[in-house]
């Protein structure tokens, strides 16, 4: 009987355009769309940075000519620049605020003397912090000029750089590429799984319970010689499958981005992604995701059973999304890892475990704890669903 109900509900669900959108189309599209946007934006930023001419204001007397020359003759690799002489700092600050200048330098009156005496010259650098990246550009130019002056002084004083460098550090990364990339981007995948797993469950849950009640078909179904628990399990099976399908189609989207649309060019990242998308990884990932999706379904069903209309169910379940998305964001923060505390926090444990799984650093003991915690919660949610579904006042409108 469960199979009969499951088959019918699946057929019904697959003919619902709204469910198909949230279960297949959006999850498949999301990764390629995000990747395209990311690539286009970063491409246009770097293009912009390379081609944009930076207007640099300089307030200096005749003494600052050397500095201005150094600024003008820096190699082209530092980007295009135009040096504009300004009469005073008040005017310069105003021009920076208006974005006519991207930054400005006040060259002190004793600049040349300081260079000759080999003493430090204090330079005031004006910039607008709301114009992102401009302080970095200023630092780039000024550090380069400072470095040139330093080299000159070493030569004049006949000092070898090695003599004034007591320690030289060579940092060696002991983490593999998989670990590094996994820890950096690993939080993104479980976030997508949670968001789409939740949304993938949402429409079928509302449609199969509230929708059936609203359309007047539930009463008929309950007069057939099928137990309520069998009806519940049959329907729940379709809801869980829809959530898992949404997760699977998110993975399909990632696969398409790499294989078909050729969006990832870096061979190191490609190698890591291929390692991630292995059979073992997928098996472990589904092991973590399945209890979480059952838990989502178990949370949604009592609400869908209680609600009197599709709209009411949607208005309760949609904001609930936030309760799961916020913990899912934990994966984005560096430094938070799966341990004996986080393994007991539902949803957070799945996010962190998936992240560790991607990085290949998952502790099996913590995986088991996370699995048990989510499975127990899923069991509680299913029990509540059954109790609610068995309550006669909720079944008829």
């Amino acid at each position, binding site marked *: 009987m469960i199979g009969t109900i499951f088959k019918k509900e699946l057929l019904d669900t697959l003919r619902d355009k709204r469910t198909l959108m949230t279960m297949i189309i959006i999850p498949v599209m999301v990764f390629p769309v995000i990747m395209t946007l990311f690539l286009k934006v970063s491409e246009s930023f770097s293009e912009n940075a390379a081609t944009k001419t930076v207007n640099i204001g300089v307030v200096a007397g005749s003494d600052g000519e050397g500095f201005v020359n150094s600024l003008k003759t820096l190699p082209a690799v530092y980007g295009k620049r135009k040096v504009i002489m300004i009469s005073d700092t008040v005017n310069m600050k105003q021009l920076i605020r208006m974005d006519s200048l991207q930054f400005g330098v006040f060259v002190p009156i004793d600049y040349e003397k300081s260079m000759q005496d080999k003493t430090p010259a204090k330079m005031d650098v004006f910039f607008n912090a709301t114009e992102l990246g401009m302080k970095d550009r200023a630092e780039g130019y000024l550090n380069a000029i400072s470095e040139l002056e330093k080299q000159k002084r070493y030569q004049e004083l006949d000092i070898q750089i090695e003599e004034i460098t007591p320690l030289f550090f060579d940092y060696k990364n002991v983490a593999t590429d998989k670990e590094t990339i996994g820890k950096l981007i690993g939080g993104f995948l479980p976030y997508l799984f949670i968001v789409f797993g939740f949304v993938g469950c949402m429409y079928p849950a509302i449609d199969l319970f509230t929708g059936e009640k609203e*359309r*007047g078909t539930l009463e*008929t*179904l309950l007069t*057939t*010689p*099928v137990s309520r628990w069998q009806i519940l399990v049959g329907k729940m099976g379709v809801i869980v499958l829809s959530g898992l399908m949404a997760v699977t189609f998110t993975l399909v989207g990632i696969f398409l981005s790499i294989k078909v649309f050729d969006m990832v060019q870096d061979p190191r990242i490609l190698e890591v992604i291929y390692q991630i998308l292995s059979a073992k990884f997928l098996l472990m990932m589904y092991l973590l995701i399945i209890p979480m999706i059952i838990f989502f379904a178990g949370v949604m069903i009592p609400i869908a059973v209680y609600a009197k209309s599709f709209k009411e169910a949607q208005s309760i379940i949609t904001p609930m999304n936030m309760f799961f998305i916020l913990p899912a964001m934990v994966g984005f923060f560096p430094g938070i890892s799966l341990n004996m505390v986080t393994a007991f926090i539902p949803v957070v444990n799945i996010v962190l475990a998936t992240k560790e799984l991607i990085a290949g650093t998952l502790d099996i003991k913590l995986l088991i704890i996370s699995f048990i915690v989510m499975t127990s919660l899923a069991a509680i949610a299913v029990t509540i669903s059954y109790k609610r579904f068995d309550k*006669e006042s909720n079944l008829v409108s």
Partner: protein
Amino acid sequence: MIEVKNLRKEFELSKKQQKEFATTEKVAIAVDSISFTCQPGRIFSLLGPNGAGKTTTMRMLSTLFQPTSGSIMIGGVDAIKNPKEARAKIGFLTGSTGLYARLTPNEVIKYFADLYGVKKDDFEKRKKYLYDLLDMNDFANKRIAKLSTGMKQKVSICRTMIHDPEIIIFDEPTSGLDVITAENIIKLILDCKNQGKTVIFSSHIMSEVDLLCDDLAIIHKGKMVFEGTMEDFRNQMQAPNLTSEFIRIITENK
């Protein structure tokens, strides 16, 4: 046969409902110790104004609701102890019954036949008989969303009868339907009677009662105010017609 004895149904009232109904009572009595018997080959009509307790009674008969007390025997099966077994003997149709809009009549009928455990051979024979009888062959593969109200009603009838139930429960089956569509239901009720099935239907349309009914019971505010044959009812009438007599009985028992 349906045998109902001292059937009672109480609903717990929430604080909000107590406020709505302006009462301090913790429970509302929807059906209060009613008893009646529906015989095979006869049509039993349950009458009453809106809110009398007809739908609650029908829902208890179809095991959707658990009675607070009393007993229900459906074709010799105790419906409270063995609800699944009782449900297998019942065909249930209401005027507000919906259908799965995204499925076709063929898919809906197969689904319900499977839920009732109808064997493949029996299903094919029964389906052919009902499709021919209701003239459903032309739209059997169209999505239900695209069917007219009359066609949908035919699908509902077919769905109710696919497992050849010995007891049919109709809860205000013609409510909201036009005369032509309602005619299909009237015809179905008469067919069921002629096949020796036990038929119970609730209504407040006296012309339907006059046309179909062999036995009737009138309930008001959950209590039985009349029970007998249609012949008894006509013999005891004090008002000039059935509708007036129905109103008189209800008013007398206010």
